[in-house]
């Protein structure tokens, strides 16, 4: 029973090898190797950890049984979005991000990891086309981190501390910004309750020479397209403020790129581009800016710049490193750590597969099914679609105040029918009453909507 285990992940756990190596280093046993650690800093006794499942068979059975307690969006019809999206992931994306070389590489550079560096350059290049901008940074932790960095960039560019953004941003993003930009003053701008668009009068009233930036999401968290985006940008510029737009990349085959309506800095969530949700593990952040020195010098992420050598070969070099905290410690612009390289490569594969036509069809399919869902749900007795006058992309809000029921009750009942109903907004936006944020993607079929309508009608009206 007490037989010494030879660990499959630890080749030198073979006793004879260990002995030979200990002899070479002149230690009588492994314990001697730790003699520089004083007794008072040592762990007394041994750790109390779960019994080891040393064989792969036991381990697989153990983990699998835990995972089997989950029900996934493959088994249920999903209408949840709100920052993490159930888009289709092409098989080639998984094939490439499962490749040992990409999966297990890290921070190698120009020569040993030439292919990885090129893939990262292609990521920034492809995002550059999608958002129609020349300078793109490496992907960040998530869309919220990109938004926070974009706002901090605005502070560094203008020396001003006030941030104007719409009242309709998500509580999750608001918490991120309150944390990351805690030295700034975040002021909320009202939005129009019929269209969901920003209230320009309120914006004009609040903007001043203290404003560092106006930040908008397009589409907004509540799903509506910001039709006054260009005017908002103009107002920002007139007041010397940066115009930051957070964008859904899955919309950009059909919806105008923010740079073409005045954005100075563009951010957004990367996950829709070929990355599985993984309970939120798939998030990543897009960050792009103008090709101007002051913007470039204020972007904290690595740049992999292309160069040509004497043989006419392309190489890729980490560039303008003095900006980064890796190089300059506390003098760098913001801290920069390990982010989501594998998701950047995956997004590059996705955009290469999709091409301009794929991105167009993606946006097209979403717009049709989204508008169908919005229309059909609005026809249910007891359901009121909010911001009806506005246009949507893939999300929209329904309200059921007239039914006397709560979203929580309704969602529980939908769950029985193997449907994940829309995100409950009743705690997030008290002013919206009993409302839910519904989301469709290109995976959603007409019959899914018809089934949802049928079930909702039953729940609300019988």
């Amino acid at each position, binding site marked *: 029973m007490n037989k010494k285990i030879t660990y499959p992940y630890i080749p030198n756990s073979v006793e004879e*090898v*260990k002995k030979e190596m200990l002899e070479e*280093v002149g230690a009588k046993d492994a314990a001697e190797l730790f003699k*520089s650690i004083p007794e008072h*800093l*040592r762990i007394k006794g041994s*750790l109390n*950890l*779960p019994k*080891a499942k040393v064989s792969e068979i036991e*381990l697989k059975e153990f*983990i699998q049984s*835990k995972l*089997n307690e989950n*029900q*996934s969006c*493959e088994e*249920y019809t999903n209408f*949840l979005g709100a*920052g993490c999206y159930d888009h289709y992931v*092409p098989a080639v994306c998984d094939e*490439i*991000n*499962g*490749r040992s070389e*990409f*999966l*297990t590489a*890290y921070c190698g550079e120009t020569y*040993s*990891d030439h*292919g990885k560096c*090129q893939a990262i*350059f292609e990521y920034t290049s492809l995002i*550059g086309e999608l958002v129609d901008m*020349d300078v793109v940074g490496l992907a960040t932790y998530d869309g919220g981190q990109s938004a926070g960095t974009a706002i901090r960039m605005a502070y560094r560019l203008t020396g001003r501390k006030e941030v104007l953004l719409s009242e309709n941003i998500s509580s999750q993003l608001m918490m991120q910004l309150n*944390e990351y930009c805690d030295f700034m003053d975040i002021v909320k701008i009202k939005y129009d309750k019929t269209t969901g668009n920003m209230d320009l009068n309120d914006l004009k009233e609040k903007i001043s020479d203290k404003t560092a930036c106006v930040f908008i999401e*397009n589409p907004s968290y509540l799903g509506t397209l910001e039709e006054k985006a260009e005017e908002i940008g103009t107002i920002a510029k007139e007041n010397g403020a940066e115009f930051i737009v957070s964008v859904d990349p899955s919309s*950009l085959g059909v919806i105008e790129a923010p740079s073409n309506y005045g954005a100075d800095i563009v951010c957004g969530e990367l996950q829709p581009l070929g990355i599985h949700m993984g*309970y939120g593990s798939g998030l990543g952040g897009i960050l792009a800016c103008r090709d101007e020195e002051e913007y470039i010098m204020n972007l904290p992420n690595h740049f992999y710049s292309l*160069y040509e050598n004497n*043989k006419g070969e392309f*190489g890729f*070099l980490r560039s303008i490193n003095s900006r980064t905290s890796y190089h300059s*410690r506390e003098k760098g612009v913001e*801290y*920069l*750590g*390990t982010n989501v*390289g*594998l998701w950047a490569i995956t997004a*590059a*594969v996705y955009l290469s597969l*999709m091409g301009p036509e*794929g991105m167009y069809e993606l946006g*097209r399919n979403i717009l*049709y099914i989204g508008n169908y869902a919005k*229309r059909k749900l609005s026809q249910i007795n007891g359901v009121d679609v909010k911001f009806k006058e506005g*246009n949507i992309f893939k999300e929209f809000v329904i309200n059921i105040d007239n039914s006397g029921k709560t979203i929580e009750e309704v969602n529980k009942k939908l*769950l029985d029918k193997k449907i994940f109903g829309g995100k409950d907004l009743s705690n997030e936006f008290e002013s919206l009453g009993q409302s839910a944020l519904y989301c469709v993607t290109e995976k959603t079929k007409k019959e899914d909507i018809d089934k949802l309508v049928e079930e909702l009608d039953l729940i609300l009206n019988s």
Partner: protein
Amino acid sequence: MRDKKLRNFHEAKWDEPIIFELSTKGQRGILLPEVEKDLEKEFGELENLIPENLKRKKKPELPELAQPQVLRHFLRLSQETLGQDINIDIGLGTCTMKYSPKINEQFVRNPKFSELHPLQDEETTQGILKIIYEFEEIMKEISGMDSFSFQPGGGGQAIYSNAAIIKKYHEDQGEGEKRNEIITTLLSHPLNAAAPHTKGFKVINLMPNETGYPSIEDLKEVVSEKTAGIFITNPEDTGIYNPIVKEFVDIVHEAGGLCVYDMADYNGLFGIARAKEANIDLCHFNLHKAFSSPHGSMGPACGAQGVTKELEKYLPVPRVDYDGEKYYLNYDKPNSIGKLRKFYGVIAVVLRAYAYVHTLGEKGLKEVAEISVLNSNYLIKRMLKEVKGISAPWGNKDEYRTEQVRFSWEKLYKDTGVNTDDIDRRGTDYGLQGYFQSHHPMIIPEPFTPEPNETYSKDEIDEYVEIFKKISEEAYENPELVKTAPHNAPISYLNQPIIDDPKDLIVTWRVYKKKKGIK
């Protein structure tokens, strides 16, 4: 067996064009379904669904390729990448490039995990919530800390999160304004300086002395009523364990500051030493390092953040709690610093780490520590004995290092003019990933920081030593060969520029085309 110490290696060299150069108008990599007829009938033209001023006027100029060509392109790029799986990745010290078990990839790619939406009803996510909850228990035991958050998306974000907690703690004590200084050591990871600075602190860097760590006197000189806390990496990147860390902690505590351990270099300490015994208040582990999650070409990652009971209330939300019947996400934490990342964090990394600890258990983890330190000292012994021109500055020569070491090629450089960059590039000609030199500032001249963790065999470590013996010989006999390396890599070392001027920056293909006047 054949007596063959060095391999005749050449990395794949595909001379692969940029993906845009492979585009052929009209090709498709993937198709989407047609719009259902009923929907088209109901809404008519797509134009009806987009406000006029938001219609994309010009489609994005993405490349157009068929599927096999996209696959082949990225496969070729993958072949021009030396992942840990295919090379003796001892060189990237401080990164703990250990084997990432393949079975764990199956777990994270299982739809029961990969297709979970983070806002699903908790009734449907009990499995993953339980894993997170139990992994917190495991991390508490490993570190001795009282509470953990897995929300930070990497080590850097965990350091940042620790700085955020320190700030909030002092604000709650009514000392937020006054305590605005963070102390760290110059050999700690740069983010121990950068992240607190991002959080608004003034940063003081302590220089190491010949022991490899700063002295008590140096610390006492900078500690004051302004001290908010200290960030210490132990062992530091030099592989020298700071035996007086408890004295550091006591001094900072006495002054009213908090003490943070950066445990990114933890691999050699499982079951041996932990944060608790050093009386540490906050710490973080990189689950993509010591806990085996793959590094993924720079993430996704997870910085597991551990704190004492007193500081638990400040951890990011949500926390995973258990009410006796079910596991749930708890956002009701009024003192929390808030959120660093949407939803919970990179749970894929937590899932892999959970499986990793479960298969090794207490004894296996201790074996990890012992073998990684044994491997490291074996490598040091052979390198110093057999490789000309290398040394291991600082530290007590009679003492063992922990899981890594910082060598110096100073002597070799003085003798031959070949520097650490040259040697690093030459390693690739023998099949090695580039090595990690040092974080900035590089106070050890011509540095080289290998970390031969427990997943490398003695034969592999021997091969590694043989390679550097050979490169050293080359430097002394034929320095040009090393200075012009690599010769067997995907591209050549010829007039490699330094790009420091924003005007020279080319991070997108469109900028390259503009500069070249290509349409």
